[in-house]
């Protein structure tokens, strides 16, 4: 029954990987470039940004599509990862880290992993308590949490900045080092591109594995009938909390990658508007699949970049307000007409027309 889905998921993954490699090689060898192919609408820089966000949205997709929960504060977890990386590298001295550790090549990698684990642990504790309650409570709690983290970043975690400035307040932290492996620097951008996309594809691959596992079935079940899932032996609150923790951990890793790409972080990258954008991306992708997270990020970036480059041709003045308006209505409309995700809708249409053959395949 699921062998076919398995095979097509693999094909999809290999296909995406091939495109990613081709675009990267094209850029490196200067044979062709994404800017050239898209008339400067999407640049190589954008491709890296897309790759960074894929794990965030894949995680959110698991939460939304499988556990049926939503986080309105995902930018907070993303920010925690970013600030953890930034503080322990660029401000290592201020927190008493010996330079022999903080300047070594392996340190940022360890921070990335440990931060993700810690963020996931924190999310698990919160999720465990809040997810006992039904429906909208996680949405509320994460909304508050996201805003709390944003303020903590801006306000130096409440510590007087004249004693020790960790976050740099509204200005943020700059001079974050690039990542290295031994003496091999993961920079210029082409190298970072491959790192980011390797992690992006890894997150898709893992989410896809999970979907086909025992846990994946349990999660899909508890989304529409927690009662029947429990009667089948699924520990519903625990499963939801772990999924939430996973999503938070994925976001944290992406945050670390963002910090080392941007080499500077400031609170505005982790505001509620950013959380909202993540939710929109996840909603477009819909029910988790190989494509859900990826499509969401790509579509939103494409719309975003198109608006950014095309709007100035018809409107003078700033285009930000239009983007906010368009995204807001877009989100409402997607949810009204295609609550399972736009992509899911297309698949469903295909599936309905293909029922006769698949009936015999089990």
């Amino acid at each position: 029954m699921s062998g076919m889905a398995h095979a097509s998921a693999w094909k999809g993954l290999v296909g995406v990987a091939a495109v990613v490699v081709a675009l990267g090689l094209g850029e490196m060898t200067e044979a062709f470039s994404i800017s050239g192919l898209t008339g400067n609408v999407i640049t190589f820089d954008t491709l890296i940004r897309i790759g960074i966000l894929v794990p965030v949205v894949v995680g959110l997709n698991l939460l939304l599509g499988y556990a049926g929960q939503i986080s309105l504060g995902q930018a907070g977890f993303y920010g925690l990862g970013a600030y953890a990386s930034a503080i322990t590298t660029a401000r290592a001295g201020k927190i008493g880290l010996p330079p022999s550790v903080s300047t070594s090549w392996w340190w940022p990698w360890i921070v990335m992993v440990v931060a993700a684990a810690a963020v996931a642990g924190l999310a698990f504790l919160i999720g465990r308590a809040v997810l006992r309650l039904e429906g909208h409570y996680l949405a509320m709690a994460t909304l508050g949490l996201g805003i709390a983290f944003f303020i903590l970043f801006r306000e130096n975690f409440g510590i007087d900045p004249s004693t020790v400035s960790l976050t740099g307040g509204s200005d943020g932290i700059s001079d974050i080092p690039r990542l290295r492996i031994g003496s091999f620097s993961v920079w210029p951008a082409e190298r970072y591109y491959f790192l980011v996309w390797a992690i992006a594809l890894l997150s898709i691959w893992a989410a896809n594995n999970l979907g086909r596992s025992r846990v994946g079935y349990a999660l899909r079940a508890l989304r529409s009938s927690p009662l029947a899932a429990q009667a089948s032996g699924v520990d519903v609150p625990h499963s939801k909390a772990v999924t939430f923790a996973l999503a938070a951990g994925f976001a944290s890793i992406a945050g670390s990658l963002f910090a080392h790409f941007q080499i500077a972080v400031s609170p505005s990258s982790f505001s509620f508007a950013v959380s909202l954008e993540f939710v929109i991306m996840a909603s477009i992708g819909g029910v988790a699949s190989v494509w859900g997270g990826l499509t969401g990020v790509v579509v939103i970036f494409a719309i975003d970049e198109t608006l950014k480059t095309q709007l100035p041709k018809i409107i003078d003045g700033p285009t930000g307000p239009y983007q906010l308006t368009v995204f807001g209505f877009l989100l409402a409309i997607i949810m009204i007409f295609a609550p399972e995700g736009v992509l899911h809708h297309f698949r469903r249409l295909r599936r309905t027309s293909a029922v006769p053959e698949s009936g015999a395949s089990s």
Partner: protein
Amino acid sequence: MRLPMSARSAGIGLVLIAIILRLGNGRGFGATEYAQLTVDGLRSGSIYALIAVGFVVVFNVTKVINFAQGAFVMLGAMITADVYSRSLTGSDLLNLVIAASIAIVLTTAVGVVTDIVFMRPIRKSNDLVKIIVTVGLFTALEGLALLKWGPNALRLPAFNTFLTDNPRDTNYRPFGLLVKGQSIWIWLATITLLIALSWFFTKTMKGRAFRASASNELAANLMGINSVAMATVAFGLAAALGAVGGILIAPATAPIYDMGLRLGLKGFVSAVTGGLRSVSGAVAGGILLGVIENVAAGVTKAGLRDIWSAVILILVLLYRPEGLFAGKRETEKV
């Protein structure tokens, strides 16, 4: 041994008070300082209460947490400031009255349209879909406000300036405290509105029908009450309450397109603190949040002010999800 929840939340409350007193002590705060912080907290608390009642009204009838509530507050403030600045008549006071009326009517209309156009089609959808739709609408309204009014704050004079020659707000000094004229306006307006609301709910047909469909949609339908229409009334009412809150706070905060998120969150936290179902709980929650937030900000850092609502929200959700003032939760029907 597990302590009962009420004992635990009381314990947490005591610990928080102890921390506040300890921090205040470090700054040499005495009774006057705390009283002043409380009075100022009562002012924002009243606004939170109005916004919170908006959340409760919509939630009771439709089971929707309307994240767009904050946008209604923003619209009330922005439209008033905008219309006022056009000086339609020779009298400033009349200009304010006209501006406020237009703002309330327009915002109410936005609330009604929100329900009819966006919420009705998803009446039968799950919570998640509804939440995301209201979040989307919030964002869209904020975007539209940014388009219309730009990124800078507008201005609305304090209401007392219309009655006195003083170009600035009047300062009253009872018992060595400082009370702004606008605070008095806020309290008077909030009390009047809450009394009117309770009259509406208990004494009018429409209000009773409203309460009926809030408590049991099916039974209300059997009695001939149209719960779909009631949802629209709820959204309209919530929008009007939000708008009034926005108008009242406008002189104090200089209205800006993105003020809705912060105020919406505060109103929402107040509503949750009050149990999300009762109007009086929401009012109490609003007052409580206003005071706690202001005192806590006073003893720590002003920049941290907005974090307290998030902290309280999470504590309430963790320890008393049914709200501070509500009874025990009922067994969910299987």
